């Protein structure tokens, strides 16, 4: 219960922070914000001074900053995100459209990373100090130092440009998924594998593990009956932390591969100073992170009954 309240407080703070930041951004934009918003609402051909003045009066753009800020945050609280300054469409519609593309990319990336990282980590953790363990340490240290855009660059150069196996950019077909999701997955797997390895090594050292083997279970039986559930707890906890990496990755990877998702939209909105879109996309990303973490809190409690604070 306590955890849910604190996540709620976190969510509200995130909304206020983003709302205030985008408000300051709106105020510090060069040019007349009222004209821009009016153009966004009515189209560039239908804007005149009267329309701009109406917008100015409605949003209190000329008045003192504090009432205007409260008005801005009030719109936010009513979930009124306004219209995009570029396309003129309601921000909510645009985001609903892009969120699907981003979510599918993120889910594929997570699944791919779980296929690569934890199995290797568990195998390495069963034989700490072995050949696989040492190779994994070197590989994951190296991979962790490669930022996502660099990984994307390397994959594009070698797999798309040099070998011509896969398209470097695009969206819509299965083969377009491979490079962007692999870029994200390799970075996630580098961390995943280490966490699984450390958890496995720790668990394989515990008395209950020895007992399970002593009473006659084979190694695979011990692993499936007693190991996996224990390894999954830190893995799932870290998945929540990795979500930050994933969101940052999505911003970069979508821009590099031309993936029509929310990260791509955010970069474009920043580029063209489309403040309502920046606010909308930033909110979805920030609140999504809080939501994922709240879910993970609950999931961990479900898997590991020892956690009850």
């Amino acid at each position, binding site marked *: 219960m306590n955890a849910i309240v604190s996540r709620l407080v*976190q969510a509200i703070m*995130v909304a206020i922070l983003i709302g205030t930041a985008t408000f*300051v951004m709106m105020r510090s934009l060069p040019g007349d914000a009222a004209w821009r918003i009016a153009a966004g609402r009515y189209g560039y051909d239908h804007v005149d001074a009267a329309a701009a003045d109406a917008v100015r009066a409605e949003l209190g753009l000329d008045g003192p900053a504090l009432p205007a800020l409260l008005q801005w945050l009030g719109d936010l609280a009513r979930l009124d995100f306004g219209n995009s300054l570029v396309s003129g469409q309601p921000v909510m519609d645009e985001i609903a459209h892009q969120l699907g593309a981003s979510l599918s990319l993120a889910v594929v990336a997570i699944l791919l990373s779980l296929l690569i990282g934890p199995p290797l980590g568990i195998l390495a953790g069963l034989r700490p100090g072995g050949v696989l363990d040492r190779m994994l*340490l070197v590989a994951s240290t190296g991979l962790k130092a490669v*930022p996502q855009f660099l990984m994307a660059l390397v994959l594009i150069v070698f797999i798309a440009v040099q070998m011509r196996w896969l398209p470097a950019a695009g969206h819509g077909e299965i083969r377009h998924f491979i490079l962007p999701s692999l870029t994200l997955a390799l970075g996630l797997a580098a961390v995943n594998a280490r966490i699984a390895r450390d958890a496995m090594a720790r668990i394989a050292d515990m008395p209950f593990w020895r007992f399970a083997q002593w009473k006659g279970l084979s190694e695979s039986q011990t692993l499936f009956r007693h190991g996996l559930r224990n390894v999954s707890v830190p893995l799932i906890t870290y998945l929540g932390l990795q979500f930050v990496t994933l969101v*940052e990755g999505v911003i970069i990877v979508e*821009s590099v591969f031309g993936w029509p998702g929310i990260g791509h939209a955010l970069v474009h909105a*920043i580029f063209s100073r489309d403040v309502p879109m920046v606010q909308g996309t930033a909110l979805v*990303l920030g609140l999504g*992170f809080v939501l994922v973490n709240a879910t993970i809190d609950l999931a961990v409690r479900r898997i590991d009954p020892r956690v009850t604070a």
Partner: protein
Amino acid sequence: MIVIATPQRRRAMWPAARIVGAALVLIVALLALLGSVVVPGDPFAQSLVKALAGPDPAAPLGYDHLGRSIFHRLVDALWLSPVIALAAVATAGSAGLALGTLAAALGGWVERGLVILADALLALPGLLLVLIVLAMVPGTALGFWAGLSLVLWVEFFRLTRAATREVLASPAVQASRLLGFGPIYLFRAHIWPEIAPMMLTAAAFGTATAIMAIAALGFVHVGMRAPTPELGLMMVELLPYWREAPLALLSPVIATFALLLGLTLLAGSRKS
């Protein structure tokens, strides 16, 4: 009998890894510091005749698509992002240290407020925050500094607060207090020795994060602007010429990787 086999090998490996990391960072730093002294040249001078030409004595790494010396652009770029990163880490480190100690020492609403703020910032992906600040602050370098400081202070704050709380509750601090020592002495004698070893790790990670962020945003064209030599920007500019001049693209890629790997190794294992 239970024989517990602790993985000793890994514990013993870290110092070696740290030395390798420090060496990598040092090599890159030397290149940045001495590069233009050893081979003088201008990173902005164009000569379209030499576009994408191979290395010659005046440009040891060849020329880019506008005939500018890649060596001198790289040397310049290896100045730019580390300087911004170090400035941001210094700001974030001192702010996090001060606020963390303050939160742990005062407790109550000060602590609660700061923790809520830190948690909210933690929920925002760092790149997102940097992007928003970049859009507000005039001047890209200044924006990067402000945005990255805002992102990085949270880690320092959390580390400092956790360690300080533990130290302040210890009998040693109680004894010091009973002897009448003031808060400055308490910080110097009890808190700082506890925090100092964590600071190197946090600072190295922070610097790596900052350099990655600057390069990543440069790569997607929302960071530093065109003629400025910057690592990410150089890569995206040279990417179309991969087939004609692979060395041109590889130089910034290898330099960035070496710098980031060095910083990661220097940071060592993060204690959770």
